[in-house]
């Protein structure tokens, strides 16, 4: 392998060449220096305007052997892992996963410049397996309110569908409504499903892969892959696109291929059946926000739209920035924990911009398929003064209403 300094005719500092050596060992890491400095990444980054070092400049700094400049800059922590840059890069540089992820990993292990809020989320996830610091025992507590039977699969048990619930859907009060909606839909369809209860831990994607905490990711991977191996299932169902990405991309890389499907993909397969039993009309204009981890990162744009269009009375309208051009909610790449850190440097929160785009379409409902987006957009709706005009609802919640499954425990 040609070393970075030879390739570029420059002599990088030791720290820079060490860093590049580590990146080169990762899948597609060697593409980092195929950058042609076109600036597509900087222009397409929703927060590029606030970055002292945009991805293009970061690569230029590495070529000049000046990684220390990047350690001193907050730019690395402004990335919200929206994948716009990676998606558009004409040279196929894995900017988000390798450049940002590895730089963050470097800063974490050197203990320099890591925002305290993110460290707190890591600490809680290390200790308790979720970023809230909640007890793992409480993970399945939501099932008590579900009004339908939700089986907890113990080791050795089997089910057609193993539903990986996730941290936000398990613990966050507002998300639990959508979790219960999905439980009721699965139950109404007669699906043989079960969850892992207290044995489930954070999938590792949100706090780790592009955030640099590879060690934490690996320890979560070890726990989760062991737990999954001890249960039999045909489909692994997830509600969180970040978990979807982790199971689809990262777990196989480490030796655990998984038959994972996002719940919108799974339910889209049932759409003829759903269409037949959806009785309740939902007369509303709805616009759908593409989650970065489902859309740009995994090319699933249709499943959620198929489901929404199957709801009687529902009119689906598009925002100007949709599908691969969708604007990020700002919650990825640790952004959910860094809202104030990012706000101090940008002053225009991404979720606020996005709800304004949604409202401009004339839609009454902003439909989402990622649990982080519900609280993020709901807060933004309040700050943007759109309360009463725009509601934020998960696709599962909309489907449950059309199926007559909403409301208190049945």
């Amino acid at each position, binding site marked *: 392998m040609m070393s970075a300094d030879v390739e570029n005719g420059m002599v990088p500092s030791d720290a820079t060449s060490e860093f590049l050596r580590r990146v080169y060992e990762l899948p597609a890491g060697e593409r980092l220096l195929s950058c042609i400095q076109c600036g597509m990444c900087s222009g397409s980054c929703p927060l590029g305007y606030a970055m002292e070092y945009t991805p293009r400049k970061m690569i230029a700094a590495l070529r000049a052997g000046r990684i220390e400049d990047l350690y001193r800059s907050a730019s690395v922590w402004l990335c919200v892992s929206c994948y716009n840059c990676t998606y558009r890069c004409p040279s196929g540089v894995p900017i988000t996963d390798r450049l940002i992820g590895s730089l963050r990993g470097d800063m974490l*292990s050197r203990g320099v410049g*890591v925002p305290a809020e993110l*460290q*707190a989320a*890591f600490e809680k996830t290390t200790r308790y397996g979720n970023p809230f610091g909640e007890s793992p025992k409480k993970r399945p507590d939501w099932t008590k309110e579900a009004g339908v039977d939700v089986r907890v699969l113990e080791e050795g048990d089997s089910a057609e569908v193993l539903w990986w619930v996730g941290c936000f859907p398990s613990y966050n009060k507002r998300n639990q409504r959508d979790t219960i909606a999905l439980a009721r839909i699965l139950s109404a369809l007669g699906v043989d499903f079960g969850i892992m209860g207290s044995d489930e831990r954070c999938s590792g994607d949100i706090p780790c892969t592009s955030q640099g*905490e*590879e*060690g*934490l990711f690996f320890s979560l991977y070890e726990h989760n892959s062991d737990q999954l191996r001890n249960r039999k299932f045909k489909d692994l169902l997830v509600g969180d696109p970040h978990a979807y990405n982790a199971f689809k991309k990262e777990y196989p890389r480490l030796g655990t291929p998984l038959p994972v499907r996002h719940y919108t993909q799974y339910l889209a397969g049932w759409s003829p059946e759903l269409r037949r039993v959806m009785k309740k009309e939902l007369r509303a204009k709805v616009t759908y926000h593409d989650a970065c981890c489902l859309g740009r990162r995994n090319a699933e744009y249709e499943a959620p739209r198929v489901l929404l269009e199957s709801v009687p009375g529902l009119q689906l309208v598009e925002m100007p920035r949709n599908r691969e051009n969708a604007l990020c909610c700002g919650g990825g790449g640790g952004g959910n924990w860094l809202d104030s850190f990012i706000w101090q440097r940008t002053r225009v929160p991404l979720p606020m911009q996005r709800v304004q785009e949604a409202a401009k379409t004339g839609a009454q409902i902003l439909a989402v398929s990622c649990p982080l987006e519900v609280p993020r957009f709901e807060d933004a709706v309040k700050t943007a003064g759109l309360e009463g005009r725009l509601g934020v609802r998960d696709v599962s919640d909309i489907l449950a209403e059309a199926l007559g499954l909403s409301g208190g425990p049945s």
Partner: protein
Amino acid sequence: MYVTNEADEHALEQALILKGRDGAHVVAISSGGDEARAALASAVAKGADEAYFAPVPFASRADNHHLAATLASVMKGAGYDLILTGVWASDQLDAGLGGLLAAELGLPYVGGLTSVSAPAESAKATVRKEFPGGRLGVMEVDLPAVLGIQSAENPPRYVPVSKVMQAKRSLQAQTIPPAASHEARVHLRKLTKPEAATRAEMISGSPEEVADRLVRILRERGVA
């Protein structure tokens, strides 16, 4: 699941702050079952220079007198300027160790601290303690001293999991044998889950009726 006592995490953080500021040499000591070694690995990964482990069987965990004697055996004459302990333990809500340790060592003790300043070569440390009502006490304490840390000057630092794993693999903790000569003064009789208490009885009626009933109950129980 083993979780390090929060106040102890703060004590360690304060020690590491002193290391960064004044070049202190930090020795981490943990006690308990085997899982407490994980806390030492984490301390070393964060920057502690040495690690000691005092094994304590489950049955004698409540005996802080014995633990203080055990820890004092390695601390006596070892030349430490400061011994930082978490001000209390979150499992037993026990805040005894710091004071008992100071008594064993014949050193001054101040607890409930939120900052410690101890410049190198100084014979005194300046400590801050928060009092109720929003008052802040600034005190000087002669060194060496035992301090009970309530919270460090900044939140405990995060250390990446891979570093902790590395430290775990290469951890060389010296074992502190239990103090033999010490007579156990706390005896564990039994451990049970909390028993469900009987229900409260709500007394209704006019104030006079309620008072009469209350007096009767107190007499019956022999309280009044």
